[in-house]
């Protein structure tokens, strides 16, 4: 079964449940792929031995009435994993081994899965190309020297290259959906509060949300089902009953109203993306959905708002990395202040420092009202736009990104152009609503492009159904020459 690693998670789960394959075989096949990878740099930490041990243990006494029986999963290195180094892509945490397990990973392990490794990401999830990681650039399996997107770049890359059957990321402004779009995979950012943030290294607390990254929409439903749930350790967690997303998944989207926001048609967007979007509309109509033009008038303020709110929270969230308690500490300096300065100067990369400075600035007295307070007000307006729209439509269709994957280094020295890559994903985080990106076609380089469906609060099931129906008709096929194994 050489091609098993190309199969969907759902297929592998089914094979294990039917006892046609053992967890250990599955695990070893993925480990073989990981070992063959010489260039992607998607892993920060391999847990091969741990995974094989867990697989053997599973096979000895297979518990099959779980969602993810005997499935090895590599996860973004932002999730704290007990006894396994958790770096957040930063030098600051290069030596940090938590003695606790994040709620989300624990939920996965409770469903029968186990850890295969920790995946590269932008430093503290700050970036859109995985070029800010202390552990180096990650490459996109689609083409050598292209970025996989970010910040969950390692997750997207490893998933697309069949190094893990499924994975999880975090999405603060598009960090799941943009890399999913760049690598031809599926990525879902759930409603804020659906998945616990406990044990995830924080970037911007009011925006951060963990979500699944998978090869298919069906896999995505299965993973979300395993991840989601109320957690009393997270005050922003939503109290609600568990849903059976995978069981309730249906192609039937007849009669649903889908909104097309005119503000998402931006200047200089490649023609292919426009074409993709039109194709999406066509498919939806064919599936019996109704297309309605809508307006989200405050969309143009989303990016500037995001780049005030997110850095503000980050500047405070990252204050704890001071060299006092854990992680990196500079050995230079003769007093506390110098220790702080040297530790944070040496421990953080440029993008993180840039955002700490922006965040500190916008919260400073004299600037707070003009920036932070105003941004909060605009954030409310953006949310209101969505609320108004969802009175008329069930979901909204947009492109996931304004471009396909770009070359490593292409935007690295131009933060604004890099930030613009999140223009379609950021409003969703500001509104706290769910959105999914599915592969929908390619650009003229044959690089994948994604379509995004945005839903209302806690309407994940409907989003998954729409994505499921569209995915089937688009029938996107990943065509990779596995250059990274050469």
């Amino acid at each position, binding site marked *: 079964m050489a091609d098993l690693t190309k199969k969907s998670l759902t297929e592998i789960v089914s094979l294990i449940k039917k006892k046609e394959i053992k967890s250990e075989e599955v695990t070893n096949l993925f480990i073989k792929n990981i070992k063959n990878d010489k260039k992607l740099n998607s892993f920060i930490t391999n847990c091969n031995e741990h995974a094989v041990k867990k697989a053997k243990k599973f096979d000895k006494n297979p518990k099959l009435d779980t969602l993810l029986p005997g499935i090895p999963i590599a996860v973004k290195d932002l999730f704290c994993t007990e006894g396994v180094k*958790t770096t957040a892509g930063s030098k600051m945490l290069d030596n940090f081994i938590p003695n606790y397990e994040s709620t989300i990973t624990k939920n996965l392990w409770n469903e029968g899965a186990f850890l295969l490794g920790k995946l590269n990401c932008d430093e503290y999830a700050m970036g859109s190309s995985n070029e800010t990681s202390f552990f180096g650039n990650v490459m996109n399996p689609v083409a050598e020297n292209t970025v996989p997107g970010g910040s969950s770049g390692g997750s997207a890359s490893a998933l697309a290259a069949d190094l893990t059957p499924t994975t999880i990321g975090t999405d603060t402004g598009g960090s799941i959906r943009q890399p999913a779009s760049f690598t031809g995979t599926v990525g879902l950012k759930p409603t804020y509060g659906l998945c616990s*943030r406990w044990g995830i290294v*924080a970037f911007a*607390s009011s925006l951060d949300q963990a979500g699944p990254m998978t090869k298919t929409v069906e896999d995505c439903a299965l993973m979300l089902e395993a991840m989601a749930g109320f957690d009393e350790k997270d005050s922003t967690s939503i109290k609600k009953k568990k849903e059976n997303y995978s069981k309730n998944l249906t192609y039937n989207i007849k009669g649903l109203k889908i909104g097309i926001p005119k503000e998402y048609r931006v200047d200089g967007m490649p023609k292919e993306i426009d074409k993709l979007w039109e194709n999406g509309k066509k498919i939806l109509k064919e599936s019996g959905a109704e297309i309605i033009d809508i307006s989200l008038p405050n969309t143009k303020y989303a990016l500037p708002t995001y780049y005030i709110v997110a850095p503000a929270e980050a500047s*405070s969230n990252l*204050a*704890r990395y001071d060299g006092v308690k854990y992680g990196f500490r500079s050995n230079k300096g003769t007093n506390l202040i110098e220790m702080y300065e040297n530790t944070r100067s040496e421990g953080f990369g440029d993008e993180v420092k840039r955002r700490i400075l922006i965040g500190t600035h916008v919260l*400073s007295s004299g600037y707070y009202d003009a920036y932070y307070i105003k941004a909060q007000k605009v954030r409310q307006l953006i949310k209101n736009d969505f609320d108004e729209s969802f009175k008329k439509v069930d979901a909204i269709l947009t492109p996931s990104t304004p471009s396909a994957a770009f070359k490593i280094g292409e935007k690295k020295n131009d933060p604004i152009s890099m930030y613009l890559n999140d223009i379609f994903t950021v409003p969703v985080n500001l509104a706290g609503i769910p959105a999914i990106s599915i592969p929908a076609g390619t650009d003229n380089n044959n690089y994948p492009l994604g379509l995004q469906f945005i839903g209302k609060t806690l309407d994940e099931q409907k989003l998954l159904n729409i994505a499921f129906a569209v995915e089937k008709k688009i029938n996107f096929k990943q065509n990779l020459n596995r250059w990274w194994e050469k």
Partner: protein
Amino acid sequence: MVGKVMTREKGKYLIEGEKGKWEVVIGLEVHAQVSSNSKLFSGSSTKFGAEPNTQVSLVDSAFPGMLPVINEFCVQQAIKTGLGLNAKINSYSVFDRKNYFYADLPQGYQISQYKNPIVGEGKITLDLPNGTKTIGIERLHLEQDAGKSIHDLDPSNTYVDLNRSGVALMEIVSKPDLSSPDEVNAYIKKLRSIMKYLGTCDGNMQEGSLRADVNVSVRKEGNKELGTRCEIKNVNSIKFMQMAIIYEAQRQVELLEAGKSIDQETRLFDTKKNETRSMRSKEDAHDYRYFPDPDLLPLNLNKELIENIKKNLPELPDQKKERFINDYSLTAYEANVLVSEKEISDYFEEVVKTSDIKLAKNWIIGDLFALLNEKNISISQSPVTAKKMSQLIDSISSGVISGRTAKEVFEIMKESGEDPNKIIERKGLQQKSDPKELEKIIEKILTENNDKVEQYKSGKDKLFGFFVGQVMKISGGKANPQLVNQILKNKLKK
């Protein structure tokens, strides 16, 4: 120091400078530790005196990905305290982050409340020698305590103890309504007493459960405008607060009289040198970059919860004082003293449950308080328990011993805590109250001192005391004095 403190009529506290008289304006920010078994945002214990870093959770030490979860009990304690201060409870309040770097602040920010505190304006009534004075409360908010940096254990390292990190504090901010060190004393004591009655803060200043930042400014007598203030940080005893205020007010008067101005700044009080020193100027003041903590939802209190707490509020010192005056015919002063601490009022009420009120109040305010002062102990540590005090008083009212003998008995109780009845028994201190027996003694004395009887009858009234003395002498001091008086008067009339 050129300034000279003078106290004028109406208890007004003024500083006499060379160019006139100055008033002092004081506002206090009291930090009171909430009585709660666990911390404000984590389940760690708050017990005092544990080994360093043994009461620290992952949340308290700010590990990556850790999130705060509000301790509902602490919220209720804050509401309770607010109600005890006659204050407005805000149904909507917000936790903010106060950002600054310090080694004992693991998160790099303190979770506090800034623009929307849980409790708004309220008031405290002070009983002062010249009447009552109302002090306004500006607000009360909840916040986390920081850890403790220990600089003196090692010459080159600082040690950090995070046991206190995350412990719940109430910051209670007064209006600048206080105008003397004595008022500050009365204010802290009253506030402490209210919180102890409520069970929301143990008020233990030695253990740091109650500290205050003191804001001091001065102005010419009668001037309505406030002067520039200085904040004296983290003073942990009433005595030090008073000393700091006296020093600081004098310093400001001197500067102003010399034509200089006051710099708004934060100062420290050096308890050894008895002086305040500049800690940081306004220019160096921290920019705390407050913003709402995105890890916590705003606190929305429902009316029911507030009403429920209100309904179950215990009797507070002011109400108790009122009741004591009405029920026990106490003077305002006596009532004040007896309600000043809940333990004292409980003691008093236990004694008067069975014993004479007048004797009880005199014995408690007089002898018992002297004993507590002398031994520097609290009433709960008193060797003379309420029950034993009751027995002692009862033996006076029933005539078993005289008031004078009772003092003797009390002296023994003070040291040994012995049961008064046993002391009376053992020492044979019972009074002679049998009229026939006393009559015999009296008759004998009158017969033996016939000459004196004649003198008395011819108008030398003073001799009455002589006869009483003789009776006491013969009876070994045990004759019931009232009875002796009565019998003597009768006999001498004849």
